[in-house]
C-alpha cells in the first residue's frame, strides 16, 4: 500500500486523535486564553490609567506612593478642562471639518470608482494611473507647498483651508474600483437599457450593492479626519479654529505636568466619540478592514 492510499484510508477512517495531539490542543487552548488575557491587559491598563487619572484629585495623582483608584468619583477635572480651553468650539470645529472632509472623500471615491468601471471614456486607464500616482505622494511630503497654496488663496485658519487639501481620495477610490469590478456588468447594463442614467444606476444599484465596502471606507474616512493632526496644526492659527486633537495638545503645553487630571479629562473628550462609533460598528469595521487587506 503506497503512502497516498494509506493517507486516504486514514482520512476515511477518522481515527481518534492521538494523546499527543490532544495535549497539543489543550496547550494551545491555554496559550490562547493567556493571549486573550494579555491582550486585554496591554490595552486595558493604559486605558484604565487614563480614565482613573481623569477622576483623581491632584493629591491622588502626585502621591509618592502610587494610588490605583480614585477615592471617590470626582468630576471637577472635566469641568476644569471644559472651562480651561474652548472645548465647545473645538467640538464644533472637529464635527464640521470631519463631516465635510469625509463627505467629500466618500462622494468622490464612489463617483470616481463608478466612472472608472462603468462609464465609457477614451483613456480612462490613464485617469486610473493618475490616481495611482496620487497614492504615491503622501500628504506629509507636500505640506509646505500646500500651505503656500492655501495661504495664497487666503484660506489659512478657515474650514475650507482645513478640508480642501484632504478632500480628494486615492486609496478609497482604488479599493472601491477593485470592488466594483467584481460586480456583474449585466447589473448596470440592464438598468441602463431600461433608460436609467448613470446617476440613477450609481445611486440605486451600485451603491446599495457595494454598501458594506462604502460604509467601511466612509467610517475609516470619518475616523481619519477626526484624528487628523499635522495639517490642522499647520493651517490653524487661532484658538477658535483649532480642532480637538490640536486643542488638547495646546492644553498639554499649558497644563501638562501640573494638572494631569484635567489633561486626561480633556483627552477623553477626544477619544470617547470615536470609541462610541467603534463600539457600534466594530464587528463590521474590523472584518471589513481585514477583508480589504486579505482580498485587496
Amino acid at each position: 500500500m503506497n503512502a497516498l492510499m494509506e493517507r486516504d484510508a486514514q482520512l476515511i477512517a477518522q481515527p481518534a486523535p492521538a494523546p499527543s495531539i490532544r495535549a497539543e490542543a489543550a496547550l494551545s487552548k491555554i496559550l490562547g486564553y493567556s493571549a486573550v488575557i494579555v491582550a486585554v491587559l496591554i490595552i486595558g491598563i493604559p486605558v484604565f490609567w487614563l480614565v482613573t487619572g481623569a477622576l483623581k484629585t491632584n493629591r491622588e495623582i502626585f502621591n509618592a506612593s502610587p494610588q490605583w483608584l480614585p477615592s471617590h468619583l470626582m468630576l471637577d477635572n472635566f469641568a476644569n478642562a471644559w472651562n480651561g480651553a474652548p472645548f465647545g468650539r473645538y467640538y464644533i470645529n472637529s464635527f464640521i471639518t470631519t463631516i465635510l472632509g469625509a463627505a467629500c472623500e466618500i462622494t468622490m471615491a464612489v463617483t470616481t470608482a463608478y466612472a472608472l468601471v462603468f462609464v465609457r471614456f477614451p483613456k480612462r486607464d490613464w485617469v486610473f494611473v493618475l490616481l495611482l500616482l496620487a497614492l504615491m505622494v503622501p500628504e506629509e511630503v507636500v505640506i509646505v507647498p500646500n500651505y503656500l497654496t492655501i495661504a495664497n488663496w487666503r484660506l489659512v485658519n478657515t474650514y475650507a483651508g482645513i478640508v480642501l487639501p484632504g478632500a480628494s481620495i486615492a486609496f478609497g477610490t482604488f479599493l472601491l474600483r477593485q470592488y466594483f469590478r467584481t460586480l456583474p456588468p449585466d447589473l448596470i447594463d440592464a438598468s441602463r437599457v431600461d433608460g436609467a442614467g448613470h446617476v440613477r444606476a450609481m445611486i440605486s444599484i451600485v451603491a446599495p450593492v457595494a454598501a458594506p465596502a462604502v460604509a467601511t471606507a466612509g467610517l475609516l474616512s470619518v475616523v481619519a479626519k477626526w484624528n487628523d493632526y499635522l495639517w490642522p496644526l499647520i493651517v490653524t492659527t487661532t484658538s477658535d479654529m483649532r480642532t480637538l486633537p490640536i486643542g488638547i495638545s495646546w492644553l498639554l503645553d499649558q497644563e501638562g505636568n501640573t494638572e494631569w487630571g484635567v489633561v486626561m479629562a480633556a483627552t477623553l473628550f477626544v477619544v470617547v466619540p470615536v470609541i462610541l462609533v467603534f463600539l457600534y460598528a466594530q464587528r463590521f469595521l474590523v472584518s471589513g478592514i481585514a477583508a480589504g487587506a486579505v482580498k485587496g
Partner: protein
Amino acid sequence: MQLTKHDFSASIAGRIRRDWREWLIFLAFAGPNVALFAIFTYAPMVNNLILSFNDWNMISSDKAWVGLQNYIDVFTDSQFSRIFLNTIVFTAASVTLVLALGLGGGLLLNQKLRGRNAARSILFSPHILSGAAIAIVWIYIFDPRFGLIYAVLHPLGIQSPNWLTDPNWSMPAIVIVYVWKYLGYATVIYIAGLQAIPGDLYEAARVDGAGAWMRFRHVTLPGLSPVMFFLVLTSILSSFQSFDIINIMTKGGPINSTNTLIYHLYELGFINFSIGRAGVIGMILFVLMFVVTLLQLRYLDRQVNYA
C-alpha cells in the same frame, strides 16, 4: 435606400451624442477628484522640487535660486545622519515588533476561544484612536515620578527610567507607543490571513506526521506570506508618517534622539522657515515612500487578479 442612409447617419449622430454624454458624465464623476489631486498633490510635488533649489524663508519676497546648495547643506548637516538613522531605527524596531508580536497574537487568538472576538476588537481599538490623545496619555504613563510605569515599578523597588528626558530611553519610549497603537491592527490582519489558509492543508500535514513546528514552517508561514508582505509595507509607510506621537511626546528631542525625517521636515518648514531645506527632506521622504508604495500596489494588484 434613402431610408437606410438616413437611419445610418442618424445612428452615427446618435452615437456621437451618446459618446459625448458618456464623456461628460465621466468628467463630472471623476473630474473633481482628479482636479483636487492636480492642485494639492501633483503641482505641489513639482513645486516642492523647485523650492528645494531655492533659498527662501516663506516671508520675504525674494527667493534665490541656489542650485544644489540646499541638498549639500542637508547632507553635510552634522545632525542629518543622526536623523536619518533615527528614522531607520524607529521604522525597523516598530515594524519588526508589530509584525512579530502581531503574528504571535494572531496565531494564539485564531482558535475557538470564548471572548476571542472581544479580545480582537479591544486589541484593535487603539488603531482608530487619535494619535495626539494616545501620545498625551503615554506622557502621563511614562512620567518617572507618578506615572503608570512608576506605579508598577515602585513597589518592586525598581526606579523608572526618565523615559522622555533621557536620550537613551526616548527612542524606546516612542517605539513602545507606536507598537501599542498598531499591534492590534496587525493581529486582526494576521487572523484574517490565517483564516484564508485552507484547513485541509493542516489536516494533510498532520496525517503526514508533521509536528506543530513543521506545520507552522511549511503551511502557516507560506500561507501568510502575502499578508505579511502587505503588513510590512503598510507599517513602513505609517511609521514614516508618525508625526503626532513624536511632536507631542518629544518634539524630536532630547538632543535630537527622536528626530525623524517627517519631524525634521516640519521643523525646517514651520519652525525654522527654511523652506528650501524642508523641500529637500520632502524629496528624500518621497523617494523612500514611493518605492514602498510601488511594492504595495504590485501586491494589491496581484491579490485582485489571482485571488
